[in-house]
């Protein structure tokens, strides 16, 4: 590793120029710096994706609105979905994984530091490629622009016939490129967790964070690859005259759906498992108790990983697969609810009998528990296929998955930001601003996504740029839009807190939360080499053992 320590030595050397500074960041292979690059990149796209959502919500604030044209609206929902999944959620979660896994397992870096850098830059380039479509997609017909085929790009809408110009190609290529980045990072995570743990840290003793990211990486390897295959097939169709999805030549539009959702469903577990990882580290610390049922949590995670590969066609209940296929996917989808519910119960049991401190990270985790419970239950509703024949492709689904991704994943991400910001920057954030962010965002989230379920129940489909008055949808859409502004305010407070605290925050020290995993045993921020000497551990909470030498964990489990 050739990165410099973040704290500059006091020598007579001139302080580095801006270009030198930039150069170290661009050429870095240090997992901590790459982690921060991923996170900052994702935050920028979070704002862009949020603007896209705001544009859509303003257009839908009342029926027959003309804030934007249908063409622009259709591009907005396509770009919003694609951006948020591939260039916000995945990079930010990879960023945290990159930063924290080596520290938590007592290693000096990831298994393949250069592959790590490759993965980041592929993802970054993919995002830029997607947005370049705004200016570069004009094909021979002058008809190109940002893609407008929806983030799951169903065939045959994506064929040359129905998607002229290059907008769909930018979508395909951007995801192909960032897919290689994701697979690279996943390979790195698997190799790191399996091969770089410090002495004494058997698989049964590593933090749940490492377990959850390991299973997540396995899912990326098995699930992003089918998307890559499907993208290649789409490109062959569009440019070499292949017929994979060409219904006129006997091809099948449904097979695109199968290939996409074989990726798409495990993908949502790729997003949620790291969220579970954050909750599994933060809830114990702020309840002052060890996680309840560690082996069961591991087992449930692995079970979720396996079952998630068998539920994909619950996104296709209305496609006409036949009663038997529908019935199978009902069963597999209901089955995955069991290990997921077990996890919620284990988190509750962790809090039970503890001494809960309501610092900002814990507030976000408690809200996560409440919201993820609801999101899981609306998922159970839709797993009943006939009910899904009504609810599917309506605003009920949109509300459900935003409940998971925003109410579940984003909330735990905020918790993770506040929890590990002191470690990454060496400074404490402002607790008052943190709580303000929490309440603003909570109110906005519930205004938008609670009430969004109702138009779905009243028959409003998704992906429509306007709607008819007199169907009872108007008021709900108005409330949903109002919530957006509270959320935007919350995000602004959050970003302001990060920036202000980075420059003006109090020194955090190495262990501000009195926590128990290895990252808290080194400086804040950690030196380039992470640990002065590689630690040796005897239990799941090495720092608990140090702080309680008369009552260490390894006596009990």
């Amino acid at each position, binding site marked *: 590793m050739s990165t410099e320590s973040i704290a500059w030595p006091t020598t007579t050397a001139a302080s580095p120029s801006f270009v030198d500074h930039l150069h170290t960041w661009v050429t870095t292979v240090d997992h901590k710096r790459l982690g921060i690059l991923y996170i900052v990149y994702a935050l920028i796209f979070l704002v862009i994706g949020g603007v896209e959502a705001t544009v859509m919500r303003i257009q839908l604030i009342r029926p027959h609105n003309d804030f934007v044209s249908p063409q622009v609206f259709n591009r907005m929902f396509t770009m919003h979905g694609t951006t948020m999944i591939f260039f916000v959620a995945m990079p930010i979660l990879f960023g945290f994984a990159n930063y924290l896994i080596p520290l938590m397992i007592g290693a000096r870096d990831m298994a393949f530091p250069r592959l790590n850098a490759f993965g980041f830059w592929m993802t970054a380039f993919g995002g830029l490629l997607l947005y370049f479509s705004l200016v570069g997609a004009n094909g021979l017909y002058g008809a190109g622009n940002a893609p407008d085929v929806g983030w799951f790009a169903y065939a045959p809408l994506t064929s040359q016939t129905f998607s002229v110009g290059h907008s769909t190609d930018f979508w395909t290529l951007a995801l192909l490129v960032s897919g290689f980045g994701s697979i690279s990072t996943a390979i790195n995570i698997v190799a790191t967790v399996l091969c770089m743990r410090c002495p004494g840290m058997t698989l049964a003793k590593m933090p749940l964070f490492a377990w959850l990211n390991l299973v997540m990486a396995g899912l990326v390897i098995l699930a992003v*690859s089918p998307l890559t295959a499907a993208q290649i097939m789409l490109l062959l169709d569009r440019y070499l005259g*292949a017929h994979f999805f060409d219904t006129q030549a006997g091809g099948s539009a449904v097979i695109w759906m199968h290939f996409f959702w074989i990726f798409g469903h495990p993908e949502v577990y790729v997003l949620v498992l790291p969220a579970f990882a954050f909750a599994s580290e933060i809830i114990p610390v702020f309840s002052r108790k060890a996680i309840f049922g560690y082996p069961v949590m591991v087992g449930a995670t692995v079970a979720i990983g396996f079952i998630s590969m068998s539920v994909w066609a619950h996104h296709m209940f209305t496609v006409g697969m036949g009663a038997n296929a529908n019935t199978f996917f009902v069963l597999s989808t209901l089955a995955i609810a069991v290990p997921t519910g077990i996890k919620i119960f284990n988190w509750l049991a962790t809090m039970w009998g503890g001494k809960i401190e309501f610092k900002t990270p814990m507030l976000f985790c408690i809200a996560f528990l409440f919201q993820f419970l609801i999101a899981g239950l609306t998922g159970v509703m839709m797993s009943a296929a006939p009910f899904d024949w009504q609810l599917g492709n309506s605003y009920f689904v949109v509300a459900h998955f935003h409940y998971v991704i925003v109410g579940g994943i984003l909330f735990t991400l905020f918790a993770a930001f506040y929890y590990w910001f002191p470690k990454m920057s060496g400074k404490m954030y402002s607790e008052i601003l943190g709580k303000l962010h929490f309440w603003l965002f909570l109110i906005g989230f519930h205004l938008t996504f609670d009430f969004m379920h109702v138009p779905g129940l009243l028959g409003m489909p998704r992906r429509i740029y306007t709607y008819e008055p007199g169907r009872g949808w108007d008021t709900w859409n108005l409330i949903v839009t109002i919530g957006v502004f509270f959320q935007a305010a919350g995000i602004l407070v959050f970003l302001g807190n990060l920036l202000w605290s980075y420059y003006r925050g109090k020194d955090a020290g190495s262990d501000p939360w009195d926590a128990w995993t290895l990252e808290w045993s080194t400086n804040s921020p950690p030196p380039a080499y992470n640990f002065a000497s590689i630690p040796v551990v005897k239990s799941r909470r090495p720092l608990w053992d140090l702080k309680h030498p008369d009552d260490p964990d390894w006596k009990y489990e």
Partner: protein
Amino acid sequence: MNTAHLTPPRTELEWRLPSRGRVGMSALIAAEAAIFTIFVVAYLFYVGKSLSGPTPREVLSPPFFYTFCLLSSSLTIHFASRSLRRWNFRRFGAWWLLTITLGAIFLYGTASEWHRLIYRDGLTISTNLFGTTYYSLVGLHGFHVVVGLVCLSTVMVFTLFGAVKQEHAERIDVLSLYWHFVDAVWIVVFTVVYVIGR
């Protein structure tokens, strides 16, 4: 925070973990296997569904010789690896060269088959569903063979400069894993295209 307490004397602990190279390559192979699976599924799904044009039975004949070459190259690469571990650098070089040659012969076989299919039988990727799925599946495999040959040739060049030594045996093994994977995929592709699909 002082980490000294976390570090008892090293001699007490026996700590062995799998090699990063092997785990990394196995993970890569898993990802590639998933990609191939999707192309195989598409191939099987579209068997018999072409609306027109040449059918597999009309134009395909199983390439036994070239298959034999490719599968033998798995054996030769295994011998190469064994030679290297026994410090037999010349023999290693010879087996390695043989592996590359066998792989190249296989590629030639694929190329000549494609030439015949395109110019004599009029089958291209856009002719019908059979053409689409055949060229994409066999082509994807061929692409992986090309990548493998590039890597093997790079090692060949290093060998000729005398730079490959016994301590590189681990890396050679990791590369061999990839090559074995390419061969295993061919067994599947052969079965699906020339046996089931016909």
